[in-house]
């Protein structure tokens, strides 16, 4: 049976790696439900958090194929039971509407939301939680003229990850990562010889 899996991938910080990881999924026609990629706590090592719906058998093989990529350090896959995860969401609503019709205080308390910006014309609320909780607040705010909504990708902590941080630190200490060399010539065409 297909179920939600969170694939966690530690990689080098190199240009093109996002594509190399992404095509592992698209090649098999697996839809990526959510993708977060950002530096890990160790400089030079990136962490991908990818959510997909698949059979465990498929995910297991996929994780091995991902780990085989030269610049991938490690790939894990976990069911929802094995992780603690959150998404962050921002809701933009008209201030007058919300101030008049909603008991904002109750709203904030019930959904654990926080007002990030309050302007005359609009207010931005923020909440973190799991998919369903975030969706609930959308439903609540919808009638009051929700202007814009955005949610982040899932970030997840693996429950059985004792020693991860130290291993990463040790790894980076033993062999520092190579620096990323970006194209420093973009926009500087005039200065470069061409033919």
């Amino acid at each position: 049976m297909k179920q939600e899996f969170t694939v966690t991938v530690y990689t080098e910080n190199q240009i093109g790696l996002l594509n190399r990881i992404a095509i592992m999924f698209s090649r098999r026609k697996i839809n990526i439900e959510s993708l977060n990629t950002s530096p890990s706590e160790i400089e030079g090592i990136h962490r991908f958090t990818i959510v997909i719906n698949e059979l465990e058998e498929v995910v297991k093989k996929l994780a091995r194929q991902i780990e085989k990529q030269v610049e991938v350090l490690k790939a894990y896959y976990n069911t929802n039971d094995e992780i603690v995860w959150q998404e962050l969401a921002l809701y933009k609503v008209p201030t007058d509407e919300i101030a008049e019709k909603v008991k904002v205080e109750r709203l904030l308390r019930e959904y654990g939301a926080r007002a990030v910006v309050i302007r005359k014309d609009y207010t931005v609320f923020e909440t973190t939680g799991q998919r369903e909780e975030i969706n609930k607040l959308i439903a609540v705010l919808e009638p009051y003229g929700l202007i814009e909504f955005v949610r982040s990708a899932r970030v997840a902590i693996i429950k059985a990850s004792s020693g991860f941080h130290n291993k990463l630190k040790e790894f980076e200490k033993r062999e520092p990562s190579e620096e990323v060399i970006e194209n420093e010539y973009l926009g500087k065409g005039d200065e470069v010889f061409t033919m």
Partner: protein
Amino acid sequence: MSHTTAIKSKSVDEKTISNTTSPTGGGQQGARGRGEAISGSVAVLEAFLAEGVSTIFGYPGGAIMPIYDALYDYQEKLRHILVRHEQGGIHAAQGYARTSGDVGVVFATSGPGATNLVTGLADAMIDSTPLVCVTGQVFAHLLGTDAFQETDVINITTPVTKWNYQVTDATEIPAVMAKAFYIARSGRPGPVLIDITKNAQLQKFDYEGYTKCDHVRSYRPAPIVRKEYIAEAARLINEAEKPFVIFGQGVILGKAEKEFKNFIEKAGIPAAWTIMGLSALPSDHPLNVGMLGMHGNYGPNVLTNECDVLIAVGMRFDDRVTGRLDKYAKQAKVIHLDIDPAEVDKNVKTTVPVWGDCKETLPLLTALVEQKVYPSWLQKFKDMMKQEEDACITPELNPTTEQMTMGEVIKVLNELTGGDAVIVTDVGQHQMVACRYAKFTQSKSNVTSGGLGTMGFALPAAIGAKVGAPNRPVVAIIGDGGFQMTIQELGTIMQSEIDVKILILNNQFLGMVRQWQQLFHDKRYSFVDIASPDFVQVAKGYNIPGNSISKREELKKALTEMLNAKGAYLLEVMVGKENNVFPMVPQGCSVAEIRLK
């Protein structure tokens, strides 16, 4: 993601980019010293020399001109073979890698030059062939501007390369090239592509010498060998009554032919090969029971579903080998030796995985297995071979038909070469027949496109195969369809005087597709009737002598003439139009359901 990292703080002005007619500068070749200012182009060639490269297969063009300019001064040390199409270049490099056991090297320009490499990259990727391809790229400041002959080659080739990298700064070149060669040849080998922008090829920098790479921190070429699994595997083998070894190219890539032979000889286990493993074990070895897969031998296929322990060495259970997976070796305990952990359990569930380089794991396993023989088990293979001989092999090798068969051509070729030739095949019926019947006495002698099934592979691959094995006869066996896909490489053979014997088995059809149409599509021959030019005349135009025969009486003489010819030679043999390759495991059937007719 890279926006999070500090940009290397260097301005364009620091770079010495000269605008002269010979931007890389002429002068001496070879062994550049430390502290010398050299161009990125020269650094590429210095890397080649340091890595032991002797031959480059390539085709010049605008974006790779600085490298070609530098190559002008390295002609004494680096042989460049000018191909007629980049696909020919990369297939030639594959052929070279396969017979030499070393990395094949390719040059191509940006845009169409680079995209023409894609088929060869995919072929090398699936057949684990070590390659380093260097492509030129437009100036770094033009990237993303749809510049002339710009294409996003890194992203196009990502799924078909083991690793690829774009260089925009010449100072990176020595380290990147070292990494490229290391990644291409280590672990499970594969193709690497390095895309170098023109400014980086031109840019001069202070050369600090070349250091070979032996380690990349995020990359583990071979998994750690687990002794407990080897012990467990040995226990299963020692308890087995009907053990069966199946092996693939891993034996050849691991240079473990001797270790493999020692293993099966001590354990006394019959062994069958995938077409990529062909020639790793001499054809006449008493434990060599033949070929696996769709057109493999009868015994090895049927008995896969009868053995009690199946020992897979350096092979990946391709669908053409396994047939229907849910009916594949279900009765057997499976031991899988592979260097690539992702292969274990990928297609066939393994009882005991033996991770590691088989050069290392096979001797460990050999030490633990008992010296044994399985006469009655081996006899089963022999009995089934007899059945196959009566039904398929004899009619193919000693036909009574008026028209010649492909098999009898291979049989006579075997007699004349004694199995010492390198056989390069294309894709289709002739490939299956050649793999089934060609005899081999030494490893790295069978060059074919196994995984990707690339028609047009053989002619260019034969060029590289000859360069990689200059002292051995190289025979390219090609169908009339595949030959026309890369026929332009006759020009390369002519110009570079490559001594390859081209044996066209012409059945005037795209034979394998026709066979399927006959068997599975009610003989609806949809676009398989292919016309051919006069191949002998075409060859003649390239100054390559040739002959075409259609009579059995002429066969031996014509093949002898071909083999004895000085230099390249083309022989076309007209064979039966509607002959089929049997046995055959029809698609979707179990290996035990192999058909003899």
